[in-house]
C-alpha cells in the first residue's frame, strides 16, 4: 500500500509541471499584450509601452520567463495580478471558497440524486422509468449550461418568484471578516434569515452545475449495477430469499460503487469547468469567472496561477479518489 501511495504521489510532479508549461505556452500564444488591454483604444509612446512591459517582466525571452515563474512558484510566490495589482494567491483564496461551496453542493446534489436514480433504473431495466430516466440524463448531459441557467431563473425566480435571481446572499446581510464560505458565515453570524437567504441563493446554481455530473453518475451507476446484478453471487443471494433491498442495496451496490467513485473523482474537473459558466450566469463570485476575465485581460500571472491552483486541487482530489479506490478494491492495489 505504501508503495502504491508513493507511486501516486510521485506522478503528481510531472502532471503539475505539465499543467504549468501548458498554461504558460497557451496564454502566451494568444496574441496581444496586457499593456494594450489596459490602454484600450488609447496609444502611448512605444518606448514607454516597452518600459511598462518590462515592469511586469514581459520583456525577457519566454523560456527565461517560464523558469523564473516555476522557481517563484516553488517558493510559494505566484506573482501579482497585472489587473488588480494584488497577489494572485490572495485574489484566488478570496474567491475559491465560493467555488468550493458551490462545487461541493453540486456534487452532493449529483450524488444524492444520481446514485439512487441509477440503481432504480438498473433494477427496473427496460421499464418506462428506466427509459425516462436515461432520456432525462442524456438531455441533462447535453444541455448548454448558460441556457439551462437562464431558463431556471426565468421559471423559478421570475415566473414563480421562489428563488433569488443571482448572488450568494441578500444584499442586506454583511459579515465582517467572514470566511467566504457563505453557508458557514451566515449560520454563525446569528443574523435572522441569513442562513435561509444563503441556502435560497444556492439552489439554482447547485442544480445548474450539478446537472451534468448527475447525468454522468446516474448513467454510470446504472451500467455498473446492471453488470453486478448479472453476477452469480447476486443470483445466489436472490435464490437464498434475501429481500430485494438487501440484494440491491447491500450486495450489488457496494461493488457497483467502485467505478462510480472514480467517475465522481473525474467529475471534479468537469465541475470546475462548469463553474466558469455557472458563476457567470448567477453572478457567483468564484474563481471561474475571475479566470475568464483574466484571460480576456491577458493577466498572465492570474491565469497561470489560477489554472495551476485549480489543477493542483483537481489532482489532489483525484489522488484521494485513487487512494480510496485502492482501499475499496485490494485487487487493484495489489496489481500496482
Amino acid at each position, binding site marked *: 500500500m505504501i508503495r502504491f501511495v508513493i507511486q501516486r504521489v510521485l506522478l503528481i510532479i510531472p502532471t503539475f509541471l505539465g499543467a504549468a508549461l501548458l498554461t504558460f505556452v497557451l496564454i502566451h500564444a*494568444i*496574441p*496581444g*499584450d*496586457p*499593456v*494594450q*488591454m*489596459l*490602454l*484600450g*483604444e*488609447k*496609444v*502611448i509612446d512605444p518606448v*514607454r509601452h516597452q518600459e*511598462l512591459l518590462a*515592469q*511586469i517582466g514581459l520583456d525577457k525571452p519566454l523560456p527565461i520567463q517560464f523558469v523564473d515563474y516555476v522557481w517563484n512558484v516553488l517558493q510559494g510566490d505566484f506573482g*501579482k495580478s*497585472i*489587473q*488588480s*495589482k*494584488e497577489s494572485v494567491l490572495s*485574489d484566488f483564496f*478570496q*474567491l475559491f471558497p*465560493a467555488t468550493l461551496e458551490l462545487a461541493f453542493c453540486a456534487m452532493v446534489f449529483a450524488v444524492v440524486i444520481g446514485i439512487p436514480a441509477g440503481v432504480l433504473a438498473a433494477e427496473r431495466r427496460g421499464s418506462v422509468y428506466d427509459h425516462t430516466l436515461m432520456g432525462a440524463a442524456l438531455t441533462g448531459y447535453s444541455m448548454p449550461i448558460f441556457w439551462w441557467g*437562464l431558463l431556471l*431563473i*426565468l421559471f423559478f*425566480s*421570475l415566473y414563480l*418568484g*421562489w*428563488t*433569488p*435571481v*443571482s*448572488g*450568494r446572499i*441578500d*444584499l*442586506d446581510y*454583511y459579515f*465582517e471578516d467572514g470566511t*467566504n464560505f457563505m453557508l458557514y458565515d451566515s449560520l454563525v453570524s446569528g443574523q435572522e*434569515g*441569513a442562513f*435561509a*437567504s444563503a441556502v*435560497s441563493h444556492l439552489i439554482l446554481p447547485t442544480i445548474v452545475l450539478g446537472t451534468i455530473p448527475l447525468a454522468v453518475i446516474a448513467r454510470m451507476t446504472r451500467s455498473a449495477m446492471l453488470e453486478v446484478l448479472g453476477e452469480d453471487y447476486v443470483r445466489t443471494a436472490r435464490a437464498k430469499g434475501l429481500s430485494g433491498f438487501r440484494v440491491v442495496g447491500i450486495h450489488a451496490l457496494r461493488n457497483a460503487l467502485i467505478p462510480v467513485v472514480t467517475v465522481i473523482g473525474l467529475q471534479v474537473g468537469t465541475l470546475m469547468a462548469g463553474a466558469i459558466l455557472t458563476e457567470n*450566469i448567477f*453572478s457567483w*463570485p*468564484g474563481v471561474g*469567472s*475571475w479566470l475568464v*476575465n483574466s484571460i480576456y485581460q491577458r493577466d498572465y500571472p492570474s491565469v497561470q496561477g489560477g489554472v495551476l491552483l485549480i489543477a493542483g486541487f483537481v489532482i489532489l482530489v483525484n489522488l484521494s479518489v485513487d487512494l480510496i479506490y485502492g482501499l475499496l478494491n485490494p485487487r487493484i492495489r495489489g496489481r500496482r
Partner: protein
Amino acid sequence: MKVRLITATAAFALMLGTAMSAQAASTLRYCSEGSPEGFGPQLFDAGTTLDAVRPVFNRLIETKFGTTDPVASLAEKWEVSDDGLTYTFHLRQGVKFHTVKGFKPTRDFNADDVVFSFNRMLDKNNPYHAVNGGTYAYFEGMGMPDKMKSVEKVDDMTVKVTLNAPEAPFIAELGMEWASILSKEYADQLEKEGKKEQIDLVPVGTGPFVFVDYQKDAVIRYKANKDYWRGKQKVDNLVFAITKDPAVRKAKLEKGECDIYPYPAAADLAELKANPKLTVEESEGPNVAYMIMNNKMKPWDNKIVRQAVNMAINKDAIVKAVFAGGAKPAVNPLPPTIWGYNDAVKGYPYDPAKAKEMLESQGVKDLKVDLWYQPVSRPYNLDGKKMGELMQADLAKVGINVNLVTYDWAEYLKRMHAGESPLGQIGWGADIGDPDNFMYLHGCGGTGNPPGQNNEKWCNNEYDALLKQGLETSDQAKRVEIYKKAQELIHEEAPIVPIVHSVTFMPMSKKVDGYVIDPLGIHNFENVGLK
C-alpha cells in the same frame, strides 16, 4: 405523506420569502456590469473601475451633473496665466477626509494632499510612485506626463500647476478620475505601518460615500459620508451588486433585487420600457463609431474614392440592425453632445449609384480588400461582425468586394495603430467634454507622421494647425469656431466614414429619484435617492 410534503414545501417557500423580503429602505442597489480592477483612481482607466471609485473621491474640478461643463469642486476658484502655462488653484476650506478602519484623519484637506496626489504619478522619486505597479494607465493615456511640468504648494490652501505647453482642455481634464485627490495623511500613516499597498485597496477620499467593503467579484459596499461638504446624501448606503450578464441584470431589476443597472441588451429595451414598474432613461452617448480608410494604401489615398465610400454606407440600416434603433447616424467625428459640434455640416447622402459612378471614374472597379471588424462589443459598436456584414453588402453594391477580417482585441488595436488595416471599424468614447478629445485622433501634430491613434493614417497640415490653435486658445467661443472649421475640413477630405453615435440607456425602478444620465457615460450616484 403528500400532506407532509406540501407542508414542507410551503414552509420552505415561506422561509425563502422571509429571507428575500428583508430590505433596508435607504440602500440604493446598483447592478454593475463587472468587477473593479481595484480602488486606486489613479491606476485604472476602465469605466467599470472608475464608476466604483467615483463615489469615494473628489477632484479639483468636476463636471456639473448631466452636462460636460467643468465646475469648481475641491478647488473653489482658479486663475490661468496669460501664456496659458500656469494654473493657480485656490482650495476649498473645511473639507474632511473619510474615516475608515485603521485611519481617522486629524486635519482637513489642504495643498499637501493635492501635491501628493499629482506627484505620485508625475514624480518617479515619489515614495508611492512604484506602489501597486507604478502604471498610471489613464494619466499616461492622456499624455499627462508630457503635458504637466510640475505641481507645487504655494501655501496651505493654494497650489500652482505648471504645464510644458498651453493646453486649453486642461481644466476639463482635471475632472477625470486620475485627478482624484488622495489623503497624504493616510499615505504617510500607511508608509509608517509598512502597508503602502493599502492605499489602492481601502480608498480614502472626500467624496459623497465612504468605502466600507469589497467582496471580490460580488458586492461593493459604501455608506453615506455624514460630513460631505456638498451636503447629506439621500440614501444611507450604496451597494454595487456585480452582475455580469445583462439578461440577469434585467431579471434582478424586474424582481426588485436591484434598483438600477447599466448597459441593457438592445433586444430587451422594448420589454423594459413596457414594464409599468420601471423607467428607462436615455441620452445620446458621447461617442462615435467610424470606419477608417487607410490613407497610406491605394486607392484610399484618393479623396474622391473616400467620398464615394462615404456615400456607399447605409447608416440607417446599421442603426436598425445593430442597435435596434438605439443610435443616431453620425455626420462628424465629434458627437453632437460635445460643444463645438458643427451642425452646418451635412452628411454625405446614401447614394450607391452615385458612389459607384465616382469610384469607376477613379478606376476603382471589382476591388478586393480586407475590412477589419471589431471582435468585442463596445458602447459605440455593439456587434462589430453584424456591422461588418452590413458594410460588406453595401460596399459590394458599389464594386468593392470586402473580405471580413478580425483579430483578438489587443492584437486588433496594435495592428490597426501600426497602420496594417486597409478598411476597419474603430470608435471612441469621450474622456472629457472637450472637442479636442475627439478631434486629436485624426491629427499628425504637423509632422506628417501619423501617430498610433490616427488609425486612418491621414495627415493634413491645415487640420494640424487648427488643432494646435484650438489647444492654445483659451476663449471657448473662438475654440468653437476652430473646431467647426476642423469638422468642415475632415468632412471634405473624408478620411473616415463616421457611422453612428450610440444612445445610452439606464433602466431603473420608478422608486429611483434624481438619477441623471451623464453625457460622458459615467455613472454617478451622488444625491440619488429612493422614493
